[in-house]
């Protein structure tokens, strides 16, 4: 993602012509459409934001009041998701990049199945989570079910980014550590994985953004309840579901839907900014590029 923009732009000595005009107009229209979406959202939503909106509980089905409990539920769902997915992804990535010979058939199979997993629509994850976590495991509509479902969903992305950051650790450090008498497993645990941490963090942030944007997989798993959750086994409404519900099911809920939408956008902007900053500082510090899959 970030490598794209850092590449020098070759202007390639081309002149203005009819095509240039078409392309400038086309590109301008694309940007205009996106800015329309963004500015509309900010224009209608920013006015709703206040301290009480962030902290108070929703009232009157969300038309009034704030989003306090919804923020808490969202955070809990994301924490469950990452707590499960990150360790799993690091383990798998270590296996794929360090322990398997890189032309092995097993590796190919794992990668194809992860590609397929990445392509599964989120509505199917929602059905799966509903059938398996909520009903078969008896977790019900709960934050736990929602977080687990999201963990399955972001796993391929996390594995891919972790694997590529482990691969970005230059081979000579592995050789140097081995030459100092470190065993292979210690080289991996003490040197390679720690050196890959910046990339893993960036991948985690990307996964966080993906999970936070998700709606439909949570509708069937963590549910709609907008009260403050008492435990991970309570149902909890995520921010994105709240936006959806206010817009679709609550007449007169638009204003607060926009307010919640702005909070969502703001969180994503922070994540996006953090990714850019971290990638830059870490690159400067260690001289290793942070590669993140799109």
């Amino acid at each position, binding site marked *: 993602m970030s490598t794209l923009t850092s590449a020098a732009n070759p202007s390639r000595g081309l002149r203005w*012509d009819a095509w240039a005009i078409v392309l400038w107009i086309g590109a301008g229209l*694309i940007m205009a459409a996106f800015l329309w*979406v963004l500015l509309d959202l900010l224009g209608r939503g920013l006015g709703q934001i206040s301290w009480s909106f962030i902290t108070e509980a929703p009232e009157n089905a969300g038309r009034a009041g704030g989003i306090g409990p919804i923020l808490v539920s969202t955070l809990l769902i994301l924490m469950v998701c990452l707590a499960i997915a990150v360790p799993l992804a690091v383990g798998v990535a270590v296996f794929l990049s360090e322990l398997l010979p890189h032309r092995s058939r097993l590796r190919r199979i794992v990668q194809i*199945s992860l590609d397929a997993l990445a392509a599964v629509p989120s509505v199917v994850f929602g059905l799966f989570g509903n*059938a398996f976590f909520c009903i078969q495991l008896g977790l019900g509509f709960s934050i736990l079910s929602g977080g687990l479902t999201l963990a399955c969903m972001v*796993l391929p992305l996390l594995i891919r980014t972790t694997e590529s950051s482990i691969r970005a650790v230059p081979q000579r450090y592995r050789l140097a550590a081995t030459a100092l008498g470190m065993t292979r497993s210690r080289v991996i645990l003490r040197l390679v994985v720690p050196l890959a941490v910046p990339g893993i963090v960036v991948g985690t942030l990307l996964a966080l953004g993906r999970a936070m944007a998700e709606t*439909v997989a949570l509708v069937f798993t963590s549910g709609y309840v907008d009260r403050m959750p008492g435990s991970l086994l309570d149902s909890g409404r995520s921010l994105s579901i709240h936006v959806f519900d206010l817009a679709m099911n609550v007449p007169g809920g638009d204003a607060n839907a926009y307010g919640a939408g702005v909070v*969502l956008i703001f969180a994503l902007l922070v994540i996006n900014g953090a990714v850019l900053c971290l990638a830059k500082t870490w690159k400067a510090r260690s001289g290793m590029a942070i590669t993140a899959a799109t």
Partner: protein
Amino acid sequence: MYLRSPARASTVLSPMLIGAGALALLASALIAFIFFVVLGEAMAALGEIGLWRFLTDASWHPSSGEFNLLPMVAGTGLVAAGAMVLAMPLGLIAAVFVTFYAPSPVATAYLRLIELFAGIPSVLYGLWGLVVLVPIIADLAAPGSSLLAASLVLALMVLPTIALIATMSVRSVPLERIQAARALGFTKASTMVKIVIPSARKGLAVAAILGAGRAVGETMAVMMVAGNIVQVPESIFEPVRTLSANIALEIAYAMDVHRSALFVSALVMIAFVVLATALLEFVTNKQAMPDVHPD
């Protein structure tokens, strides 16, 4: 990479290899597991209703025992096709623009923004569609919530993905090839059409497949603007219901065979995904990709 080592005993690292290997197997079995869970839930409907009736029943009225999925399949296909028809050329325009026409700072800023828009939650695109776009379309032709609205919103949603992948593949066209064409007297425009786009076709195919996959799977934004009436639309201004919207709308109250029938429609979507993944493997043929290990 550590490979085939002639070393003995001490390099056999059991606990770590076994642990990480088990996790990898778990992760790669997940897709199969999801498939079997969904299949298991769908079995009841497949047994009771049978595949055939999903295609031949009068309509989709689960309460009166009618389970025709075709209107939803058509809806999904039409919405996704409409989105792709809009998004592919636009994505290509954006890619060519940032690579060949935009001055460097403009290109950088443009891509940053596109990356940002790639991350905007679908529900917010849906909100915009519902509040801004649908009333505009309703002025043209009621009711506003329609195939057109869904396609437009979806096009906007898949456009960033397509534009980013297309940019990457257009950028990877070797400069020499472009210079050679220019030296042969090709105009800039015909260099684009005859050299750049054909050279980047693999990446563009990947962009199209990933974009289409996203378009077919998208639920929330589409559901918010499509009108969700079960019918095969006769014009772009008529409401439609997609497979995924159908699931999201009905799962909350569906029971027994009805619930099971919704899992059947999820199977249809999984089948599509498997197809798309296979196509992707075929197009990219990753075996040919070198294993990069920078030093």
